[in-house]
């Protein structure tokens, strides 16, 4: 009992100290929340020094992933916004906009010369990265002389036997099922907009259900499954595949039928450093020289003007927005998912339990 209480006190003290530090705003500093790990390292190495050079201000980076939206909503509701800028993922963006958690972007500050393409300019965020949910195959597990090329192949368990994995969520899996059925990518969301269309996707998923021993819950897990040979074919995020290949696993991306997403940098509602936050967003999204360094580590390109002209061909081909790759994919409709995920996810969980 005493031990538990000690641990509890320690945690509490930690929490209180943590709150205290969060509350103190340092002069000439903005707080940027983003993914941890490699993304954080690259930000710190390239974008933050450029921001300091430009403005004289410094950046405090906060790592937040799973609970980012909950934290943002809490600070906005409490009227004490402590993050100035935050990464907002593709799927979080519509929700953040709907809940009014973001400040509108002033493009006169971010992109005064109007060089960013239309698709990079959102009302409440600027596209900072594009990425794909793609199918990946273990070439060494394929039958001799055969290679998967489409979602129809993923569903073809006769030609390509072996365990497979998909993410344990309905998003994009329903699209993949429809593509496997031969639906054209232009028609995906028209079909999914009706209940019958959603059921049609579930019926197609029924065919593959028993061949999927595990439904992954994080990107790290999906590559681990491929790496361990637990599954031979799985979806994952395109940026994870390079690491897999580097570790000697003969894995290959099938761009055909991939889901293309964009992730944003936004200003959190109530930020006290709106102008400086815009400065950071400008540096993060419109500087091809910095983005080139970023791409050496992470294949998640943004729309910095002239970026692709400066990439060598081999590297460019690894990017989800490389024209030949982009052509084969569909743009994930995040608004559709934001509007429908609540009921479709209920249906999905029931389907998993069946």
């Amino acid at each position, binding site marked *: 009992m005493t031990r538990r209480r000690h641990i509890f006190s320690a945690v*509490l003290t930690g929490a209180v100290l943590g709150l205290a530090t969060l509350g103190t705003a340092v002069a000439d500093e903005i707080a940027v929340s983003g993914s941890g790990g490699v993304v954080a390292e690259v930000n710190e190495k390239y974008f933050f020094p450029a921001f300091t050079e430009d403005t004289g201000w410094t950046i405090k980076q906060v790592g937040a992933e*799973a*609970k980012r*939206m*909950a934290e943002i*909503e809490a600070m906005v509701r409490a009227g004490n916004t402590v993050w100035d800028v935050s990464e907002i993922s593709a799927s979080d963006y519509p*929700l953040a906009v709907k*809940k009014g958690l973001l400040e509108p972007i002033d493009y006169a500050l971010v992109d005064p010369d109007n060089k960013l393409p239309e698709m990079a300019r959102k009302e409440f965020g600027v596209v900072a990265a594009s990425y794909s949910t793609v199918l990946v195959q273990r070439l060494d597990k394929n039958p001799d002389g055969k290679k998967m090329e489409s979602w129809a192949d993923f569903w073809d368990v006769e030609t390509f036997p072996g*365990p497979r994995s998909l993410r*344990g969520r309905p998003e994009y899996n329903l699209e993949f099922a429809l593509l496997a059925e031969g639906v054209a990518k232009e028609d995906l969301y028209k079909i999914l907009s009706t209940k019958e269309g959603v059921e049609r996707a579930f019926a197609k998923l029924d065919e593959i*259900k028993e061949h*999927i*021993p*595990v*439904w992954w*819950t994080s990107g790290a*897990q999906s590559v*681990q499954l491929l790496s*361990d*040979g*637990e599954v031979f074919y799985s979806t994952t995020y395109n940026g994870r595949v390079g690491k897999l290949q580097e570790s000697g696993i003969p894995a290959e991306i099938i761009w055909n039928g991939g889901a293309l997403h964009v992730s944003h940098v936004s200003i959190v509602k109530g930020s006290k450093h709106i102008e400086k936050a815009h400065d950071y967003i400008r540096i993060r999204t419109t500087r091809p020289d910095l983005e080139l360094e970023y791409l050496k580590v992470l294949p998640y390109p943004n729309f910095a003007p002239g970026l692709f002209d400066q990439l060598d061909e081999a590297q460019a081909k690894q990017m989800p927005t490389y024209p030949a790759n982009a052509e084969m994919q569909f743009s994930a409709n995040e608004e559709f998912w934001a509007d429908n*995920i*609540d009921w479709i*996810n*209920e249906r999905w*969980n*029931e389907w*998993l*339990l069946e």
Partner: protein
Amino acid sequence: MLAFIRRTWLLWPAIGLLLVFFLVPSLDLIQASVMNPDFTLEHFERIADRKVYLAVFWRTLQVSLIVAFLAALVGYPIAYFINLQPRKTQFLLIFLIFIPLWMSVLIRSYAWMIVLGRDGIINTALLGLGLTEEPVRLLFTSGAVYFAMLQILLPVQIVTAYSAMTEIDMDLMRAARVLGARPWQALRRVFIPLSLDGTITGAIIVFMLSMGFFITPALVGGRQDMMLANLIEFQVERLNWSFASALAILLLLGTVLTVIVIRRLGNLITRRIA
């Protein structure tokens, strides 16, 4: 009044702490689950209407009960064994049991993937011995969930049961022997009734921790091994606080009621065998 204050003032910081950091948030949770913004039971109706929530709730309850029961069963002899050792060895053994507790649950779950996987230790051995042609599906099964959760929570059970056992005066066992009881009788009539309470407390803690598990089942379980915490997490991610609260209330009520039942049953059994 003054006497009352003098007698209880040492408790006040703790009560204040619980009030601010536990009771108030709990009330907030209850309030969030029935307000939108006026009083409504719509969230609880949704739980009752859609079969997924109650199905997952029963599943969570079942998994937690089985894990708690297995932990008590496996943990008891281990705690008994430790209690029989000389003081120094006891300390060492408890220390060894604590080591895995300092490791992240995530890492311990991944460790099970290495043991149970297709190319894992067990399958490699089975294939090598020619006992099977194809790798056996061990991972991504409910069995794997029970195993992994048991291994992760067992230290909690052992330490709780053991600390209760150290309180027992071993002279009572000697007295029983002197009065003619056989070793097994002394154990059954004296030691087990005295130590059962601590073991049940351990099982209750394991049960409560299990009810909130979600990482391990998601990593080593199959598609049906969903826990209620997984569904709550999804609602939080979607910022559906009210519905998340309603699900949390369901989990809380289920846990509290089951704990009361286990306690009652435990007391009954203890009295029976004593």
